[in-house]
């Protein structure tokens, strides 16, 4: 019986069938961060003798608010740190940390064919490796740490064929926004989005992570990309991977995690991206986006319009912005920072602009290339790695009514601060908007200082 990629991973991990189309599913790895882990860890400590299924299957990462901003977040970090040390769990703490969805892959903690759970909805990012990577609540994460498994209802599978190629300024972020706009904000609910096609094979791992990162924004259980040479090359030499023959043996096994040609899917869509151009969100969910040269659509929901201070027909490019942010688990990897730097090099931002690398490793790599100088010469703030302003939890909170163009994943009301208005876009569009002081794209910018314009 031909199988999809998802089915192969799922079937390899079902421990026991349970009533109601549920299954007990083995969890190979758990990523634990300081916001959602302490509750489950404390429950296990108090009621289950502090016994973990296997500490070697867990990594702990202080990521959301690191360094701590106050006593409460200091306690969260300390609880995670003490717990990790007590159990011998690998810990990435201040100085070696970053956003867990950036740190886990760059350390080689995720790989094709595995199951992975984390108390964070953007865990779907790691499906880029052909893993079944699942965001769960604290109780479920605690269950996975206690018993090495989860109770899951078997999701349906939607194959998302992507044809054509990214060009004309379109990026993986624009593809992600386009998928959500196509399916609708909840159109993926109940499904795993299994990406396929030449356009996906052509994406780098950074781009695949950006794409899978936003599967949750279509309501999907997770996203998955087929593992291939790009995946294997990325993982070769990473911290949690073996070297030499042991690694090559794993690669041979990983090659089996690919969809069979005649696999059946519960749903299937095809998206051609040749005509895709940079998108920007106008509304209060990530499905509400239009091309950057577009207008707020007729028929837009009144609640979204009122919150965003917009009316149908308003050109996105006419909207003045108060802040720009480049970062988050969607777009904070080295290639994202390079894309933003290419726009900002020799130019000056005209609104407060924050650039936050996704991990300390990304930060150091960017600095070796001089990107920190590009950002700071342009007048932007270059910070340590963190989730940053994305969720309004620590730095960079918006004032009520303030409009921010952001390379993040959520434009919900209040997401980046009570009353704050968020427009989602790619790092290049955010950078161009920061220069223009309004929503705009790189092709609107004149020559930068010292730049030769080729006609």
């Amino acid at each position: 019986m031909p199988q999809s990629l998802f089915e192969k991973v799922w079937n390899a991990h079902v421990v026991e069938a349970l009533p109601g189309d549920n299954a007990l599913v083995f969890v190979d790895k758990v990523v634990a961060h300081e916001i959602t882990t302490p509750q489950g860890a404390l429950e296990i400590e108090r009621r289950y003798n502090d016994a973990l299924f296997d500490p070697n299957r867990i990594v702990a990462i202080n990521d959301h608010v690191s360094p701590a901003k106050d006593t409460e977040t200091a306690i969260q970090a300390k609880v995670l740190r003490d717990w990790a040390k007590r159990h011998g769990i690998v810990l990435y703490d201040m100085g070696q940390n970053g956003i867990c969805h950036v740190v886990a892959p760059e350390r080689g903690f995720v790989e094709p064919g595995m199951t992975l759970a984390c108390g964070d909805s953007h865990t779907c990012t790691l499906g880029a490796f052909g893993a079944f990577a699942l965001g769960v609540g604290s109780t479920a994460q605690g269950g996975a740490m206690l018993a090495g498994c989860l109770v899951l209802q078997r999701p349906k599978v939607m194959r998302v064929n992507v044809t054509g190629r990214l060009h004309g300024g379109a990026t993986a972020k624009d593809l992600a926004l386009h998928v959500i706009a196509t399916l609708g904000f909840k159109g993926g609910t109940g499904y795993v989005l299994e990406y396929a096609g030449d356009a996906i094979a052509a994406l780098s791992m950074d781009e695949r992570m950006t794409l899978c990162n936003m599967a949750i924004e279509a309501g999907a259980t997770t996203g998955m990309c087929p593992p291939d040479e790009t995946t294997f090359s990325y993982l070769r030499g990473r911290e949690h991977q073996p070297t030499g023959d042991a690694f090559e043996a794993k690669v041979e096994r990983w090659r089996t995690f690919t969809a069979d040609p005649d696999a059946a899917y519960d749903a299937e869509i095809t998206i051609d991206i040749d005509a895709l151009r940079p998108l920007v969100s106008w509304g209060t969910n990530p499905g509400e986006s239009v091309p950057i040269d577009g207008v707020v659509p007729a028929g837009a929901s009144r609640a979204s319009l009122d919150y965003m201070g917009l009316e149908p027909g308003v050109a996105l490019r006419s909207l003045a912005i108060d802040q720009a942010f480049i970062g988050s688990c969607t777009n904070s990897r080295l290639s994202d920072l390079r894309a933003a730097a290419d726009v900002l090099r020799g130019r000056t931002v005209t609104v407060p602009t924050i650039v936050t690398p996704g991990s300390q490793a990304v930060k150091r790599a960017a600095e070796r290339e001089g990107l920190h100088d590009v950002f700071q010469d342009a007048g932007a703030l270059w910070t340590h790695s963190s989730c940053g302003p994305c969720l309004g939890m620590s730095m960079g909170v918006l004032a009520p009514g303030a409009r921010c163009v952001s390379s993040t994943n959520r434009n919900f009301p209040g997401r980046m601060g009570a009353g704050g208005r968020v427009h989602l876009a790619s790092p290049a569009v955010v950078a161009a908007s920061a220069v223009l002081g309004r929503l705009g794209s790189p092709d609107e910018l004149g020559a930068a200082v010292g730049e030769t314009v080729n006609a």
Partner: protein
Amino acid sequence: MILEGGVLPVDRANVDTDQIIPAHYLTGIETTGLGKHLFTGMTGGVELLAAYPGASIIVSRENFGCGSSREHAAWSLADRGFRAVVAPSFARIFFENAYNNGIAPIVVPSDEIDALLRSPNLRIDLDAETIVRDDGGRVHFTLDPLRKQFLLSGGYMAFLASKVAAVRAWDAARAVPT
């Protein structure tokens, strides 16, 4: 089990978890005491709660609980005494979290929502899987049979704890470990 109580009508779609509890309230390590932050991220949310004191059942529209995985959303609802959310659809992670925290996530057809929103009180029979409105109207629903046990007994962790030996045996027996 019968849940009987006043309705909090949250007449909007896509109530995301940032609206239910904004991220700046996620700085604790315990699951209790979060009710005071409930709906502080929602436009008009605080006023809505104040207008329906003592409500214990939420009726809302499509895609309730979308967004972040924060179980704080379920904890804050439970802390304010909410025992059920009735909506045409839920986001997956909130749906699971609700079951694990004594909140019944009840899916009903979207054309039933208007009448449910208008009913000041509802009587929900979890065993018979029916909702009865004040006007006597009745709506049937189905709960996941396994998660219903977790709902009634708070038993998700206990259930998994009972599986540890079986899971270890399965893991030891598989041909290619990961």
